[in-house]
């Protein structure tokens, strides 16, 4: 699953640590999310989307083919 987390974070002028503090996760989780290595839980996805005043699908881009290829 791709996402635009880094783009929106930078647009808001936040560091990874500041974003992590706002959604109450570790900085490492934000790093993993931004690099696409980790897919968030639905709760974290909602928290992130609401923080940026977006819909989940504006922030996270689901590609069905990726799921089939693992």
């Amino acid at each position, binding site marked *: 699953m791709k996402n635009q987390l880094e783009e929106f974070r930078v647009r808001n002028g936040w560091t990874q640590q500041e974003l992590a*503090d706002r959604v109450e*996760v*570790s900085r490492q989780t934000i790093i*993993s999310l931004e690099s696409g290595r*980790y897919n968030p839980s639905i709760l974290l996805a909602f928290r992130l989307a609401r923080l940026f005043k977006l819909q989940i699908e504006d922030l996270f881009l689901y590609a069905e083919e990726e799921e089939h290829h693992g």
Partner: protein
Amino acid sequence: MGWLFLVAGAFVALVGIFTELQYGYLPYNFRIITGLGILLAGIGVGHLVRYKAALKDEQSARRLTVEERDERTVLIRARAGNRAYWVSATLIYIGLMWASFAANGSLPALTGNTLWFFLAVGVLIPFGVYITSVLVDQRNL
């Protein structure tokens, strides 16, 4: 949590040292017990140091709490626990099958040194799998 690990580690290490001094003539390597105790005590000290550091300011304390509840951290630990469980279950199953075959004479009986090292391996391998899994997932996830 830190104190629990520290006390448990110190206890296990002391049991290992005492057993080695008292029953050193037995052909078992009691340093495995001592080593496990030292490892547990080390984990305890690590927890306590982090806790003391977090007490110095509110932000560090908050981040420590967040890191403990962090969903990625919880996932990594759960995956490691699951892998360690299956390795442990497999080893126990192998031991059980061995004992069954040994009962009818198909395999040599697990006694003395063999039993000791099998049990030691049964403790250490799942522990090693857990630690390795955490390290690998921290890099890959």
